């Protein structure tokens, strides 16, 4: 297999679906594991907010049920990113990516703040629209080449249509990065750094992985 | 939240020992390069932090500084 991220270290097979670890995917995998661990063991911080037009400031508290739900969502998000990092199957990758989009909405949606909820809503809309090019690309590729396995596609023989790759990148950007430009500033009104970081991290990781995928296949 | 001097000392000794052992193992060829690098990546940050904390860590006998009337 083309070694764009270094030589394969080992391959984990589940029947015809496999997970492969190259130095690149292993690095991303370890980082996803690390930050998921941090989300599990960290307590949320008390964000200090300055009241506009005065000297007053107050610390936002995160209630226990809210923290529990958001931690659950952050862990789910971490697991989805871990899956997306090592999956050697294009459909599994798109599935994990769409799950990252959903859980990212979940992480901020539990915060009872009108601005944050609006941002989560905007994020959700963009992420939902992006599933169309995302799964569309997987469908296009399987229809033209007859396989979704990344090593099989990388081995050559089948010409992967350029539009399929372009749609895949568009879908991943829509799930992860683009919503930030629609909703980012407001999303960070939400306290709870360990969970909010998972939003950024997962988006970044799926983007880094898709670069490897489109250059490999 | 001041850290105890003992805790910091344990951390410093542990990280320094790990680095030295990995370095010796690497030079004698007992472990491959990537394994030594993995150990350094984990232990070096810990060494930097604990070294800094150790320099200033109190032994528990400090007085409050004079902060004015």
């Amino acid at each position, binding site marked *: 297999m083309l070694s764009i991220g270094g030589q394969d270290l080992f391959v984990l097979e589940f029947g015809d679906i496999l997970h492969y670890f190259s*130095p690149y995917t292993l690095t991303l995998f370890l980082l996803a594991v690390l930050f998921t661990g941090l989300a599990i063991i*960290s307590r949320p911080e008390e964000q200090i907010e300055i009241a506009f037009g005065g000297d007053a400031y107050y610390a936002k508290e995160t209630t226990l049920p809210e923290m529990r739900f958001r931690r659950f969502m952050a862990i789910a998000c971490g697991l989805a990113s871990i899956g997306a990092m090592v999956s050697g199957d294009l459909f599994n990758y798109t599935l994990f990516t769409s799950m990252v989009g959903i859980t990212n909405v979940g992480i901020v949606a539990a915060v009872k703040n009108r601005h944050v909820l609006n941002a989560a809503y905007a994020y959700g809309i963009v992420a939902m629209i992006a599933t169309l090019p995302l799964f569309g690309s997987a469908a296009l590729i399987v229809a033209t080449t007859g396989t979704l396995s990344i090593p099989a596609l990388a081995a050559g023989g089948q010409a992967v249509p350029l539009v399929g790759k372009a749609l895949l990148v568009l879908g991943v950007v829509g799930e992860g*990065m683009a919503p930030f430009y629609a909703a980012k500033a407001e999303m960070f009104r939400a306290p709870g750094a360990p969970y909010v970081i998972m939003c950024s991290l997962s988006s*970044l990781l799926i983007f880094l992985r898709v670069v490897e995928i489109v250059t490999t296949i | 939240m001041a850290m105890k001097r003992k805790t910091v000392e344990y951390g410093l000794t542990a990280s320094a020992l790990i680095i030295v052992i990995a370095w010796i193992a690497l030079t004698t060829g007992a472990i491959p390069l990537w394994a030594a690098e993995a150990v350094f990546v984990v232990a070096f*940050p810990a060494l930097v932090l604990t070294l*800094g904390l150790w*320099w200033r860590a109190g032994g528990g006998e400090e007085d409050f500084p004079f902060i004015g009337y």
Partner: protein
Amino acid sequence: MIEYLVCAAAFGLLLLGIHRKVIARIQMRPGPPVWQEILHALKFSFKSTWVPRTASATLFVGIVLVAIAIWSAALFVVLAGESILILIGIYMLHKIVEHGFGLSSGSPYGKFGGVRSVISAASEIPLFVTITAIYFFTGSLLLRDIVAYQAVHGPLLLIVPPAAIAMYLVILSKLPFGPFSIVESKEIVSGYKTEHFGVWRAALAVTDGLKTFVLLYAFVLIFLGALPFWLILALMTAVLVSLSFVCAITPVLSPYDSVTVQSIITGLMLAYIGYLWWVVP
């Protein structure tokens, strides 16, 4: 190997000191001595240190460890001649680290620094364009293959100059006092670094040193190829001084302008890739 880490961090800090000195001389100030950044790192490590009450303590400390760890890993990746995709992954991960630094304390200044860091994600896309352009010619992204390619065909700087410019701008956007350094600009105190004081800040200085060294070293290796080590160090310093000139004569852009300029650069680079894709068989 540990000696490489220490030397790289010290040399990186020295480079940052030279950076400050050059900027100061251009602006007709005396400027600090060139080893000032090394002294800073030592000074901060002697200061008393604790964790703010509002902070998420585990993340507040953990992110410092992660910051040093990822750039140590980056140094080893470059030294081993592994895939530059890993290097770029780590570079982008540095965004998350800045984000973590900023958010973990609960301070509004840190938060603004962190948010700006993620907003300026557009600055990283030229990096991917750079590697795509290199990939068109070398057919591999392993650093040793790129160096081997240049031994045969001459430096990539002459073959794909726009890619070199793109990476140059990417390094520029990570340097302090540059036009794109909105994450730590002074209207938000020190941005994401604001609440990390004492030993945390000393560790951050070590990270900055490693980061500067790795980025410049990788730049020279990727675009000029294998050279004697002393020449690589001299070229790194030369590249840094040229960057200092840019930093000295440009103001810090406002966040929106910074993102706009970086997006325009990304657009130009994408057009260049389209052109390469059309021309190169």
